């Protein structure tokens, strides 16, 4: 069977010593930053991207991917033990996980979180293996008009499902699109928006934007508000969950995995949305919803499974269609482009070892995580006691070095500082930076598809509406926009979900 052959190819790539090592490194770093509040996968991946230049592309992607889903594992540790989410997607785990810890049941909570995450990781790896190839086949038949509309759909959907004001997020998308155009236009050779600054001729590196808006801005914002972490260091012995724990958890884990797998694929989805939705679902389905928030193990099992499933399946649109469903995937696309791989459905046919190697490495990574994490919990806990005042200068330093290493230009670092300022201001204005990054990455590609579509269809702008697939996508776009504008109940549900 084709699937079997593909997976065999994949494992032969993933299990080489070098890729195994980078996988291990990735998941360890991922867990580490997942545990540490204030440092997330976006900033970390951005910091490590320049470092991966020298690596073979598949090793780089394996490591970076490991960071993302590893962070989902790590985030639960901090949520359960400290009541602070290590990752945004672990917020819901705080609700019941911390309560369980206070009841002396930190061990089972951590164990169920890890096991649920592992199950979800395995299942979603299979989901990717089964559904990505047919999806890519469909996408290979797309023409430039379809690609353009698909990118529009991806951007709008990502915005609608993200938090905060939709209209401001859409504005951020457009700003990102504009910024992506800065530099020399490939087709005409003229420079756009460079204001005579020669360092801008090649455009703005997306690492600069990401590092500034996500790394620097977050550090500045963290420094505004400080606080002490109260860690439940008391004996986290007895990691074994009881039989009743397992019985209570297996269905939530199944549901969480299913929901997470689904929501990860949708643009704007991913680990965060998956965990929130899963918690809400469990609460609604529970026989006694009042237990939630007081240490219900379902409230830990389901979201943890969901966020892992969501993190991994969010690779699907990125790998098959070249559309990043969230900011982390946008960075992955950037990483691929740096290594000279054009993202899109052709990746699977032209470089199958890359695709299948990455997919297989996810399973390997999950295995490493569940085996290593439980024994290492003591280490992670001790790391939480590192004070932020020692951490943030180090993070700042790594960010600066990362940016500088792009082309040894001090201009890049200065520009990053500028984006740091902009990022901080936008945070203060409640404008989400992630949509800007998505727009920034997709901007030049969208223009290219627009241009090609106009050449092929002889300048007829209605082509986006006459081609059936393109039309279908734009209808969904219109529907989503209308939904947000007209149905305030939907908007309130969104905000409700994020309120908690």
């Amino acid at each position: 069977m084709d699937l079997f052959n593909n997976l065999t190819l994949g494992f032969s790539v993933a299990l080489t010593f070098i890729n195994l090592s980078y996988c291990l490194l990735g998941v360890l770093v991922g867990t580490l930053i997942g545990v540490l509040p204030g440092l997330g996968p976006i900033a970390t991946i951005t910091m490590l991207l320049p470092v991966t230049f020298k690596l073979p592309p598949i090793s780089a992607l394996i490591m970076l991917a490991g960071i993302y889903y590893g962070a989902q594992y790590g985030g639960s540790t901090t949520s359960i033990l400290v009541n602070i989410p290590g990752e945004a997607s672990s917020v819901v785990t705080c609700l019941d996980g911390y309560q369980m810890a206070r009841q002396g049941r930190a061990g089972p909570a951590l164990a169920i979180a890890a096991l649920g995450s592992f199950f979800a990781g395995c299942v979603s790896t299979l989901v990717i293996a089964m559904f990505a190839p047919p999806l890519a086949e469909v996408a290979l038949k797309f023409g430039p008009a379809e690609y353009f509309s698909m990118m529009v759909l991806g951007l709008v959907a990502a915005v609608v499902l993200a938090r905060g004001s939709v209209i401001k997020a859409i504005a951020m998308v457009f700003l990102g699109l504009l910024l992506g155009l800065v530099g020399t236009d490939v087709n005409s050779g003229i420079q756009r928006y460079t204001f005579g600054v020669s360092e801008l001729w090649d455009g703005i590196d997306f690492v600069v934007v990401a590092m500034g808006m996500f790394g620097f801005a977050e550090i500045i914002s963290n420094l505004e508000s400080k606080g002490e972490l109260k860690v439940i260091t008391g004996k986290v012995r007895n990691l074994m969950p009881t039989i009743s724990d397992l019985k209570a958890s297996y269905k939530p884990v199944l549901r969480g995995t299913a929901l997470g797998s689904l929501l990860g694929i949708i643009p704007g989805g991913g680990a965060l949305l998956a965990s929130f939705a899963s918690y809400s679902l469990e609460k609604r389905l529970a026989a006694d919803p009042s237990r939630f928030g007081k240490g219900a193990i379902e409230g830990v099992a389901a979201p943890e499974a969901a966020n892992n499933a969501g993190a991994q399946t969010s690779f699907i649109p990125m790998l098959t269609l070249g559309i990043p469903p969230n900011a982390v995937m946008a960075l992955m696309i950037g990483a691929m482009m740096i290594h000279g791989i054009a993202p899109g459905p052709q990746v699977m046919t032209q470089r199958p070892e890359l695709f299948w190697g990455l997919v297989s490495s996810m399973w390997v990574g999950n295995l490493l995580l569940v085996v290593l994490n439980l024994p290492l919990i003591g280490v992670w806990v001790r790391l939480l006691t590192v004070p932020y005042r020692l951490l943030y200068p180090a993070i700042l330093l790594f960010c600066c070095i990362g940016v500088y290493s792009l082309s040894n230009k001090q201009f890049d670092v200065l520009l990053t500082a500028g984006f740091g300022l902009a990022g901080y201001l936008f945070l203060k204005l409640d404008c989400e930076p992630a949509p800007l990054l998505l727009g920034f990455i997709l901007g030049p590609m969208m223009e290219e598809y627009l241009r090609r579509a106009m050449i092929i269809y002889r300048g007829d702008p209605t082509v986006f509406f006459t081609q059936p697939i393109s039309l279908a996508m734009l209808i969904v776009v219109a529907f989503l926009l209308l939904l947000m504008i007209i149905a305030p109940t939907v908007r309130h549900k969104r905000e409700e979900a994020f309120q908690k």
Partner: protein
Amino acid sequence: MKIKIRSGKDFYAGVIFIFLGGLGVVLAYSRYSMGTRTNIGPGLFPFILGGVLTLLGLLILIRSLAFAGPPLGKLAMKPLMIVLGAVIAFALSVNHLGLAFAAAVLIILSSLARDKLNVKEIMILALLLAAFVIGVFVYGLGLPFKVGPL
């Protein structure tokens, strides 16, 4: 007639978007050619993007006058200036004075943003991190950085 800003954050967000979008539109229209419909020029896409951004900014601005929203919070000037200042110092010194010096400067300057200044701790941190990054990035990964002012 006094216009009341009901939502501070949205108001300023709108202003920024209008400004940037407007800038985009004006520059695209005046400097870059729009091309033809078949062969679109470098100015068309930025023109459209800038135009939509300006309109969105206007919409956000108008909404900020009509609907209530959170006011603009205070900007934490101290961490902002310190962090950006430290980064700028790094940028200006790394080319000529080398990574070791620039790293130390960055650590020391950025540590000024913390609550209690413990000079000894900061110095040790600067030393350790500078050594660490040189070890990892220059010798370990072989990145072509200047280490010292030589």
